[in-house]
């Protein structure tokens, strides 16, 4: 986009310099710009969607993969298939209810549950490692449900 922005004034300046002596009306400005844009977009368009994996959520004191989480994990697995060079760290997190130590163990259980599900979908084991942050890194301290989750961090 930077090239486009820089390009427009230069192109306009050239138009003024070159075009003006022949024709007095500087009408085609808009049209010329429109012709320039598609060329740039075609060059920048990626061959595949950008790498993006989504977090999943869990019920209180549970590490079962819920139906909504399973859908997200399927998409995440497809993404990992598109990017075979990417390795990820699966982070398990919990809400603040309960002790820090129990939640660390529960967060680990959630991370492993997510890992097991991705393995079941055919992703290679070597691409994962797991870590638990327990209740130490809440996404939103005000909404407990938002903190019972797994994050997928590319390594």
């Amino acid at each position, binding site marked *: 986009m930077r090239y486009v922005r820089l390009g427009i004034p230069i192109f306009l300046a050239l138009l003024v310099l070159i075009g003006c002596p022949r024709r007095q009306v500087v009408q085609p400005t808009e049209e010329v710009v429109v012709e320039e844009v598609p060329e740039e977009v075609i060059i920048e368009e990626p061959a595949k969607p950008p790498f993006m994996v989504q977090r999943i959520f869990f019920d209180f*004191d549970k590490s079962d993969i819920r139906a909504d989480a399973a859908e997200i994990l399927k998409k995440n697995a497809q993404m990992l298939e598109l990017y075979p060079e990417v390795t990820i*760290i699966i982070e398990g997190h919990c809400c603040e*209810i*309960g*002790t*820090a*130590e*129990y939640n*660390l*163990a*529960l967060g*680990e*259980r959630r991370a*492993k549950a997510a890992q097991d599900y991705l393995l079941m979908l055919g992703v290679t084991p070597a691409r994962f*490692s*797991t*870590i*638990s*942050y327990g209740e*130490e*890194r809440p996404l939103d301290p005000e909404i407990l449900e938002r903190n019972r989750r797994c994050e997928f961090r590319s390594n």
Partner: protein
Amino acid sequence: MKYPLILVLLAASALPAQDIYLRLTDYGGGKINLVLEPFTVEGPTSGSDFTRRAAVVEDVLGNDLEYSLYFEIVADTTFLQKGTEGVVLRATAANEKISVRLEDFDTREKISERSYDIEKDPRRTAHTIADEVIKILTGEKGIASTRILFSYRKSGGKEIGMIDYDGYNFTRITNNDNINLFPSWAPDGKRLLFSTYTNDRLNIYVYDISERTTTSLSSFRGLNFAPCWSPDGTKICMSLSKDGNAEIYVLDLETKKLHRLTNNSAIDTSPTFSPNSREIAFVSDRSGNPQIYVMDTHGGNVRRMTFHGNYNTSPAWSPRGDIIVYVSREKDNSQQIYVTDPTDFSPMRITYLANNEEPAWSPDGLHIVFTSNRTGQYELYTMNWDGSRLRKLTTGITANAPDWSPLAE
């Protein structure tokens, strides 16, 4: 409930010592009447630094003695009849020193007299005097010079800090912008165990307070956490997830051998030693939800302790051995502190307001430090073992995981 055992222990342990003036025969009712006479300050004019420090000693000493639970502080002696058992404390401050004299209320006979330097931090002097007065009059070791470790939120992470048992003198222990968890005292009171993240792993370290050195203790694959030193100093128990999920291990410090105590797919964590270092109370969700269990230090003789409520965590064994304090999740989803007898399960709820969690015992077994969010943020409080006499220790920081130091040698 075998709470009277506390009283028996108090009385029994007080008996053999030589210079015990009065014996505690009852809890509360048998407190020693103590008359604190106003301090006499000689020499410097009022408003001087010495006068100020002497006033701090007087104030803090009074608080320490009252908080100890051994004394009934008598403010007005006109109600004390002739012949009443009691002690009078007189103090004279002069020339950077304070002389403390204890005498019998009835006969005015001297029990003891000792002189102390008033330190730069007069609170320290007061704590030293308080512990000596307690020793002389009851034979017990006082807790006035003890300290409390805890973890507190700082810029997205958690650091470990330390305060005096009455909330004063905050000291930073860690300052590494990391997540530092589970500070736990070594029985020598000079070192502590804690967990922190290094290279995407949660490891256990030993920190030496005076040397300010950190040594790695456990860094297996996965989580290394919830460390706890045995009171006899020979073992450290902890939770390790190197086998795939959290299991309890004991490290024998003499043989350097690591013994696995639990072996199942459930979470096993929060281990805490009994005062005789022979048993471990811990949390396991082997029944489907977290409950408190007890086992011996070889992993045998496992028995479940808690049967009411479906979420019981955070056990801490009283140094006197007769009470386990823990946290239970109520039907209203709040977390509340309970005490129970470890042999005859009989829980008694001792907190009611907001959430109350992470209880830890004072080394004399008479007080409990814990966290509560009753002000809207988690802060540290202490209370007596039965839930009475609440005292707020911290303000303005989100604190958790308190651990009360052992008695100073």
